[in-house]
Structures are given as C-alpha cells and as structure tokens.
C-alpha cells in the first residue's frame, strides 16, 4: 500500500529523513514509531505530498506520492495531531462541507460514527475538547471508507480515558473494514493494541521493521543474581542491551531471545558463577524504551 525507498528530506542544515526505506503492507496496522524529531512527521508529509522529497521514491496506492491529487485523496484518510481544522464550523457544517468532496461518502457510516464517537452536531469545533476534535477529524477521514488511513500522532495530548475510547473505536473499525492504517507515534504504548507491525525510525533511518509478535518474541528482560563478591564481566554480548548492576543483581534486555535453554547457556558462558537468573517477556513499550535508549547511546 505504501512503499518508501531511500527517502531523503533535508531542512536547511537538518537532515530530517536520511535514506528511509519501508513497506507498509495492505490490510495491516503499521505503527510508525520513533523518538521526537526522528523524522516521522516529515516522512508522512512526504508520502502525502505535503512535502516534496529531496530524493527517493514513495509509492502510495500504487502511484507516485508526488502525483497525489484529488482522486487519490478520496481513498486516503489523514488525521494529524496538528492539523488545522475549520474550527469556526459546527460539527454538522464540517461534515456538510466534507460530504460533497467524497463521491463514496457513506452517510449511514457517518451516522454510525457520529453515534459511536458521541459527537454533538451543533457545537463548533473550536468549542470541542481536543479529543472530540480528533474524533471529528477521524470521522471526516473515515466516513468515505478510505483504503488507506494515515495518522500522525493522533493520540498526542489526549487524556488516557479519551485515548482509550479513541483507540477502541479505531480498533473496531479497522477490524471491521480491513483498512490499511499507518499510524505514527512517539509512544508505543498508544498503539501497541492496534499495531500488527512496528516500524521504528531513528535519526531519519529505519531502525526496525517487524511484526509485533516477532518483536515481542525476540525481546526478554533478564535478571541475573551474581555471587557474593561477583562483578559483571566487562564485556557482554552485543545483543544484551542496557546491562545494569545493582548489588548482586544484573539486569539487561536480551534482544535476540530464542529460547530459555540457549539464554541459560549464554549466561553460564558469560558469568559462570551466577547463582540463578530470571527471564520474563516484555511489553512493546518496554521494548521500545530499550531500543530508544540504545539508539540514543548509538548517537553519543
């Protein structure tokens, strides 16, 4: 649905995207993650033809992103945290304006979403809360059943309850409609329930791209209890991230976890005197934080 190849985009001295290549498969929810300033929004703006890439190609819905026009936008739903909505309109006026723009606007679906999102039709957008405003934006971007939904930090600034409602709604819809969703966030927790795949961008480059399942299978949090006078060895395997010792306890993240036996063997080899160890599965959030820290260290 989206193919990005060797994308470069520079703003004066800052290289926002530096050779990014990424595939967003059809019918899946791809979470596009990265710390602030990693290049997520720039990538999205390039793929929606809001920014012109310096080099590289982006294919969206089978066509060049630079040629995206009205015909393509009838099949793309775009919601962004900092999108300027027509705040001077009421929700009804807003939808009245949007409706004629989309030939395949589904009035029944619009009505269903109105109910689902609990939007007050007579209220001006500027008088709505941020969450409600995002829902209105989402409604205006979904009611025509787009093939592709692109969301740029849609949950930013929403309180947890609203965010949960919003995500639940989105989950239901994506599940029902089989949409391709490309959603960016700087916090994996927001999208972990949604995401089929996770792509992480760091410093304008793709750092990781795999399914959520694979990611969760690959990462483990490990705690090792060392002997009384034990010290952690100076060098540990590269895939053991963020090793930290507190007293006799050494904690690290294993980023190429295969199975318990293999890990135990590796521990014995690295720390023969270790008393015992514990291995536990990690949430996507923990994995993301571990990776983000690793990227930061790489940068230094």
């Amino acid at each position: 649905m989206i193919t990005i190849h060797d994308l470069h985009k520079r703003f004066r001295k800052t290289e926002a995207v530096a050779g990014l290549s990424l595939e967003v498969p059809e019918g899946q929810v791809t979470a596009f993650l990265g710390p602030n300033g990693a290049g997520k929004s720039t990538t999205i703006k390039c793929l929606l033809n809001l920014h012109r890439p310096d080099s590289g190609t982006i294919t969206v819905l089978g066509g060049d992103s630079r040629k995206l026009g009205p015909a393509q936008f009838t099949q793309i739903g775009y919601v962004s945290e900092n999108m300027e909505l027509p705040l001077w309109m009421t929700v009804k006026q807003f939808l009245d304006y949007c409706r004629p723009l989309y030939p395949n606007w589904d009035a029944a679906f619009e009505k269903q979403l109105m109910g689902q999102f609990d939007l007050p039709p007579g209220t001006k957008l500027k008088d709505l809360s941020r969450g409600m405003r995002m829902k209105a934006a989402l409604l205006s971007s979904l009611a025509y059943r787009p093939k592709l939904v692109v969301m740029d930090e849609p949950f930013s600034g929403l309180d947890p309850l609203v965010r949960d409602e919003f995500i639940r709604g989105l989950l239901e819809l994506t599940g029902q409609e089989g949409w391709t969703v490309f959603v960016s966030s700087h916090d994996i927790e927001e999208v972990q329930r949604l995401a089929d795949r996770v792509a992480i961008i760091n410093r304008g480059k793709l750092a990781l791209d795999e399914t959520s399942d694979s990611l969760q299978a690959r990462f483990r949090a490990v705690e090792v209890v060392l002997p009384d006078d034990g010290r952690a060895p100076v060098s540990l395997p590269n895939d053991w991230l963020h090793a930290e010792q507190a007293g006799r306890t050494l904690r690290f993240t294993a980023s190429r976890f295969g199975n318990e036996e293999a890990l135990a063997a590796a521990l014995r080899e690295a720390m023969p005197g270790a008393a015992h160890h514990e291995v536990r599965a990690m949430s996507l959030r923990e994995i993301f934080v571990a990776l983000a820290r690793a990227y930061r260290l790489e940068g230094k």
Partner: protein
Amino acid sequence: MNLTLHHFLKEFRYLRLRWCVLLAVVLLDLGVQMEWVLPMRAAELGSVAGVTVSYDTLMRLVLWMVAWWFMLSVPPEESGNDGRGYAQTRPLSRVSYWAGRLMVWVLLVVTPLMLESAVYLWLNGRPWDEVALGMAERAWAAGSMTLWLLPLPLLLRGWERYAAIVLVVLLKESWLTSVLYVVFKELHWVYDSPQMAMECGRVVKATWLVGLLVPVVVMWHQRRPFGMLARLGVVVLLVALQHGMEASALFRNAYEKPSDPELIRRLTAGREVAIAERDRRFEQENFNGRKYILFRAHALLGGMPDEYVPFWRATSEAMMQKGKAMPAPPKGEGPRLPFQGLAYLGMHYPMAAALPGEKPDGLLSVDAQQTAQNMQISLPQPEKLEEPVSVHLGLTAEWMRVQRLGEVPLKAGARFQAPGFEIELLQVRPNEDGRGDKAYSCVTVVYRMSARCFEWRNDLMPLFPHPCILSPKNRYLWQFMVSSGSEQVRGTSLGWCHMIQQQTFHSVMTCGSGVTPKNLGEQRLVWLKPEYLGSSQHEMEMKDLKIGGYLLKRDGWPWSTPATEAGNPREAFLRQVRSLPRPAEGAGRAEIAQYVAEVYAASAVYIERVYLGKEGELKWPGNDREVCLLLAPYFVEHADVFRAALVHDNASLTQGVMHEAVLQAGIPGITRSEKTGWARYEREVPVAGKPGQVRKRVMEMLGLAPWRPDDLDVYVNAIRRHSDEPLWPLMDGKPPSTDEVLADYAKSFDRGYLGWLMRRPDVKYREEAERLTRKAYAELPRVVHLERGFEKPLQAAVALGMPEALDWMLRDVAMREDELARGAMMQYHAMFAPQDQGQPDTKTLLKFVQDARRYSAKDYRYDAEKMIWELRPERP
C-alpha cells in the same frame, strides 16, 4: 463547477461578517462621494481653524485597507504551507479551489465596487456609456489593488499578513520612497500632482504586473518553504519592485501619453530653436565642492503658432573650450516628465496668446511669470570663464494646447453645463481675500465644479481645470489665483468628480484695470485645461560664448531681499558695510570676492536709498562714496569680480567704485567733478600724426553699462598704466560702424541705437533694425509689467510706430501703481517726449499714468521723424 461553488459557499460562510464590514465601508464611501454624508459646504472653505480632511482620499484609503483585510481573511485551515493544511489533503482540485477563491474576489470585492461606481455615475446623471466605462475602470483598479492578495495567505500566516500590510504602507510612504527617489528621480513627479497617489495608471499597471509574481512566489514557497523573515522579505522585495516599476519608463499615466504627436512632428519640422541673448542666465553653483554653471534660458521655436505652448527641457549638454571637452557636470534634479509642464501652465505661463476660442485682440496676462518656461541645465565650469566656449545643447520641448472647458459671467449663480464639465458659481466676493478679510483689489470666487475624470481618457488628470478671470472690454487676463480653505473634492476615482473650490485673484480691481465691483458681472470666469500633444527634440549650439560676461553669481553670491523697516536706508547701508570684516592685508581672491559680494548684497537690501521723490530728487540725500572708497583698492586686481557684479548691480555701485579707483590712480586729466562728484576727464592731447598740434578731449562722466562689460577692462588698463591713452577710444576714437551698432542693437534693443539706425541712408540697416524689432516684439510674452530686459523690444516697437505695441504699453502703464516701477515708467514716458527734454518729474509721470488709463492708442499719433507718439490735439 459544483465543487467550485461548494468551496465558494464555504468561504462565503466564513467571510460573511467581514463582507458586511466591507459592504458597509463601500456604502459609506458612496454616501460620502454622493455627499449624503459629510456634504461639501462652501462656508467651510474660508475657515483656517481645525484640521483639514480630504474625505475623498481618506475614504479611498479606508476602502482599500478594508478590502486588503478582507482579501487576507482566509479560513485558517486553508492557510500556511507547513503541511498542517486541512484543505491540502482533501480531494479538492487546485482548479476548484482557486476558482472558488476567484469567485470570492469577483463577487464579494470587485462587484460591490463596480456597483458603487455604477450607482454613483447613474445618480449623477451620467450617460450609460460612462457608467459602463466607470465600472470597467473600477474593476481594473480593484484588480490591481486587491488581486495580488489572493494567493498571499498561502505565503503568510496569521499576524504576518497584517504585518505585511503595515510594511507595504510604511515602505510606500516612508524610507523606501526616499531611497527610491534617489534612484528613480522621476518618482518625485509621479506623486507631485494632486489626486494621483493611489490609483494613477502607473501604480495600477505596475501593481498588476508585480501582482502576477505573487503566485510564482507562493508556488516556490510551496516547493521550498521560506522562513518567516524570508516571507516578509519577499513582501518587501515585491513592494520595492512595484515601486521601481511604477517609477520607470515602462509605464505611463494616460495623461503622459501625447494626444497628437504627429501634429507636433509636422509643426516643428524644419524650425530652428533659438535662445535670445537677453534670455540667457548663467550662475555659478557649487555642489559638494564641485563647481558648475547653472544655465537658465527661454528657448523659442520660431514661427510656432501661439496656441501651442512649449515646456522646454535641456536633456544633454557638451561644452568645448579651445577644442577640449569639459567634464560633465553633476546632474541636477529637474523636470523629467511632460506633465510636469502642465502644472506650470495654468498658474504661471502667460496664457493670453495661447487662449483658444473667442478673445479680444491684444489680450494681456496680468499676473503670469514670463520666465515660467525657462529651462535649466548644469554646464561644466570652464577653466577660464573669460575665454570663449562652445556649448552644444540637446533640447526637448513638450507641447501643450490649452482647452477652454467652459466659462460663466463673474456673478453668483451663473452656471455652465457641457457633457463633461459643469460649473456653478456660488459666490463672488470683491475686495475680500480667502479668509473673508478686506483685501484691496482682490476678487474671491467660490464655485462648484463637476468634471469627467476617467483616468483612461485623460479627462482630468493631472490637474483640475484652471479658472482665469477674463476682462473682455479691458483685455486683461488674471490667471494666478490662491486656493484657500480645506480641500473639498468627491468622486475623483469614480469617473465623475465634483468639488467646491475657493480661489482668490489678486490685483483685479486696481485703478488701471477698469474692473470695478459694479462691473464684475461683465467679466468672465474661464476654465482652462492644458492638453499634452507631443514632444519635439532639438539641438542647438552656442558658439564663442564668454560665460564670465553673463555671470550673475560668483563665489556664492548672496540672495538679498529689499529691506522694509523704517529708517534711513542710506545710513543703514553704511552701518551694514562698516560692520563687515574687511579682508586682511594680502587676502586671497576668495576672501575678497566674498567681501565684495556681501557689500553688493547689502546694497541690494538698502536699494531704497537711491529712490527718487516726487520732484525727482533723492528721497535719502547722500552718496555711496565711502563704500566705493572701501572697494576701490580691489578694483584692478579683481576686475572679474566687479564685471560679474556689474550685471547684478541695481545701485550703480560698480560705476562708483570704478570712479574712485580711477581718481586714486593719478591718471592725467582725471579729476573729481565739482558738479557731480564723479570722476571727469579733460585734457589737451597731441593729435596723432600732426606734431605740435593738440586737441582737447573731454568726458564729463566716465561710463559703464551692464551690456558693455568690456569697457571695464579699458578702465582697468588705464589704471594699471597710469595713462589716459586707453580711455581715448571711449571718447572720440573711431566711431562704431553701422554693423557694430546693429549688432549692439540686436542685443540691447536700445532706443537710441534704433533711432540712429533708422536714420542711416542705407535702407538695409533700417529694414534689418525693423525686422529685428518686430521679431523680438512677436516673441515677447503677452503680459503687463514685462521683466527687466524684456521691456526694451516693446519700447523699440513703440518707437517704430507700431500701434499694437503702443496699445500694449499704454495698458501696461495704466496698471502701474508702485514707485518701484519708476525706472520702467521713465523709459516708457520717453516714447512720448523728445529725447532732449530730460527726465520727467513725478508729476509728469503721474499724469502719464492717468493719460494711459484715459486714452487708447487711437488717441495718439505717431511722429515718424522724432519716433515719438503725441496725443492728438483734438483730445481733451
């Protein structure tokens, strides 16, 4: 189309409140222009208190500012180019978007303005073709003033838009204008005429063109987004570009385009341009330490019909001395555009000859400046001022023709109506000035005028029609008037303007004019308008020109104004001169020249000391001997300073200095005359070639004349040699040849020379003198009170027996009221008295003036023998 309309309706929904504001301002403007609101009142014209507000200009400014604000009001979701734009990710094509925005501009901005013009013109009773033209002009102006703003919201966001408007206004009005004045000197004249600043053709056309660049800039910004400073910088650049373009030669206002260049080409072909000797003025100037000569002159294209009025400009110059080209002088600022000439015409150029339509023969302009047409150009200062130079000038004449728009009798309530011009005379106030105070001989008129003023048709711009008072019976024309009161104009940008104006004409009901409060209604108030026909280019060469002989100013000659305070001017003059620090021993030329200049300036200030009383006696007895003695030591060494001063010298100070210098030099035969106090010469000298024989040479009064500056060198030579021999040619040396006298006459038009020439037996000299006289007379501007030097050809024409010249002179004399005119009056009086009769006394001159008011040329007969005019004996 559906989406276009859909988008337009969305914009309209957003803009409707703002549009109501715009509509309200348009309606207010219509109300003001129609005078439903703030009507023009004649009563307010005389008021000097309070702030004067031009509601016409003010409303236009307000209207455009509100229109700009409206155009910059874009729904926030459409603005910006940072990817936040909601509209940019909707399936609305660019065509539909821009078509919708264009509909906003056409329907919400241009249409109300066009309708305002239409309603205004219709309510003013204008024909339908003018209504249509008015709407078209308004659309054109509105397009220029607002269309460029259409894409601007995509470049600027939020407060930046209003900052941009403030920038535009500031830049157009303040420092950028000043900076660009230096680069584009023409710009000064673009704004120099009234009612031009905002919507004149240059501005509108340049803004259209620059406005087309805005979408290009916006597209660029969309590809490569600018930072905030760059965005505002682009606005500054665009304003600068627009400013430069409107001042450039690329664009012209309608009235700058010649209306009949072919006619001018045909009329001027083959004619020679000439500058009369008496019309040449050279002044030394200093610009940033660089000296140059400022040349002013009145050029003439012989034989052009009177109705075509030229405005001369010198466009290039080249000076050669001894085959060497002089370096170019600094370029001065002068009139560059043809219509600048239009501004001078009504007020200053003598219109009597150029007045079209029915007019009395021999019409004279009373209050015009005959030198108003003088052109000026900077020339290099030659290395030696006394040595001849040749000057090559490139000249351009802008030709105007005066149109007579309409006229009414000079009485309140009089009306005139023509298709494009209407007048109603509201008030005629004799002996009253613009403030309502008593003012002798003034006539103040208040009138309401309406006129067609389409910019494309060149109907009104750049000047409003100019009123003149025409006295058909007395054949005088008053054209210089003083406007007073606040500006009361409406509708100047709507194709049909109306205004109430108050003008005061001075010196109308004087003793000699024949116009009185009782017969004011018999006079006519005539409205004139100059039309620019076309230009002609000419070249001329002045050879063997000794600039030193013409110089009026040297080393910063101070300007002086006659003193008016009470007291003895002779004593005041002496006090002034005594207070001046004298140059130290061995002082340089510059210091001495400055001292001499200051003494002469003081002399000019206290010129009253040489005025004569009623019996022809000096009002303030005494002489300038003490001052002359102070200056005499410098006479020989700095003769060039005194030669320059000679032309400037009204009080004959130079002659006195020369006398004292000659007396001090111990030249044989020179003594002080007991009778006059001046130097005289008397001596028996040997006769050349006859040994032992002597003859007596006598010169009662050593003379100097401004037109014979070379005589000064003779006296300098005599002083240097302590010999009287150099003086002999001045006395009874070889008499000048007839050709030399004729050449002198061609310069001076001296009546004595004319009499001598007319008595020559060879008819060719008589004919040539007559031809020269008639030519110079024909070229004279038809004015009363000819300026100094210009009265000579008139006197010569009278002396030749030309009745029309006599008629002119009598009417000139009739209008004389001041003592300052005594010199000219005596010269005129000489036309009626034999030359040996001596100077007339004041009584005689007063009777002469009274006779001039009483009699006409028909009452006199010409005595060809004496070349004078005598009152016919049958006259009482």
